[in-house]
């Protein structure tokens, strides 16, 4: 088969492509934009709902335990972490969605690799391993101490409470680390695929 025959076969079938009208194109754009806005609203609503719920709980419980400074400090730190997570999650979402595709393929792949590498392999990428157990201990304490109707120090002296907290902590750590590792594995696979494409693009000698 001659080389230019490939181009002829391709060209001959150009007329078979059913083109859309401007109105249909507009509808496609509107549908896709609406989908993005809806996704953002759902994500934003869940984020706000969870964060406000946690913060309201922490404030009410702290106000009900005005004499217990340790308990109040615990809740204040948790509130701060919740607020920070809320801002970081929103910013990350916006950054991810703002990724532009109008670059040459090699540059675009390079940009995606940089972004994903920073998240998955960067300086703070493993911070969650330290943060999750600490936060779980603090949340468990906040909930458990509140429903025990006793000061934090007294609750921590009770053997049953400590065992309950340890069991809650182990289950919490297991579930959250498992879920996060699943997400990380998926993203690491994505990163591997992008690196593979990049390597192929760089290899002039193939």
């Amino acid at each position, binding site marked *: 088969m001659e080389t230019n025959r490939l181009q002829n076969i391709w060209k001959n079938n150009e007329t078979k492509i*059913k083109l859309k009208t401007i109105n249909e194109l507009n509808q496609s754009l509107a549908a896709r934009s609406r989908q993005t806005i809806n996704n953002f609203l759902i994500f934003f609503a869940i984020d706000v709902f969870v964060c406000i719920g946690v913060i309201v709980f922490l404030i009410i419980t702290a106000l009900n335990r005005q004499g217990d400074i340790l308990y109040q400090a615990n809740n204040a730190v948790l509130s701060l972490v919740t607020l920070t997570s809320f801002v970081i999650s929103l910013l990350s979402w916006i950054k991810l969605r703002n990724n532009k595709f109008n670059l040459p393929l090699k540059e675009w792949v390079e940009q995606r690799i940089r972004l994903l590498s920073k998240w998955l392999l960067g300086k703070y990428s493993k911070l969650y391993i330290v943060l999750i157990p600490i936060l779980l201990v603090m949340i468990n304490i906040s909930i458990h101490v509140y429903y025990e109707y006793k000061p934090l120090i007294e609750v921590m002296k009770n053997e049953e409470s400590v065992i309950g907290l340890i069991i809650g902590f182990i289950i919490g750590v297991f579930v959250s680390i498992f879920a996060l590792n699943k997400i990380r594995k998926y993203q690491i696979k994505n990163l591997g695929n992008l690196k593979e494409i990049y390597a192929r693009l760089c290899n002039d000698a193939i």
Partner: protein
Amino acid sequence: MKALKDEFLEILSNYQGILHKVNLVYFRNASDREDNFQEIIYQLWKSYPDLRNKDSIGSWIYAVSINTSISRLKKKTRIEYREELPEPVDTYDIEEEASRENDFRLLLQAIAGLNEIDKSIMLLYLEEKSYDEIAEILGISKSNVGVRINRAKELLKKTLNLTEHGN
């Protein structure tokens, strides 16, 4: 904003053939193509305000379409390989049409066997883009483009000859 959108839709209407062809090369069934078509339009609209050089609209559309398609391919864990060609617009010569359609189907099947980079290179080659333009769209060197085109052409020819003789 409305004027910008109208201008964008006008350009899109004139160049939409590129989107359909990129879709043909990367996706094998109509529903995947429609989803990807919408995604490409959305990504084009997002980056339209950054388009400075209106002389290179074609290259910009190719770049966004190829990047979006590759990104979408990577997200999909399973791709259904069910061949669906676009509907023909007329049947003025049924026999000739059938033969052309068969050639086109074989060509698409052969392209499907290439990796995602070679698919885009072959698409640009079939669209009669120069090596310079292909290098610019993909961000690789001209020599790399040349090597890849020759290799992909050989592969396509081999596959097509094998399939034709097999039939």
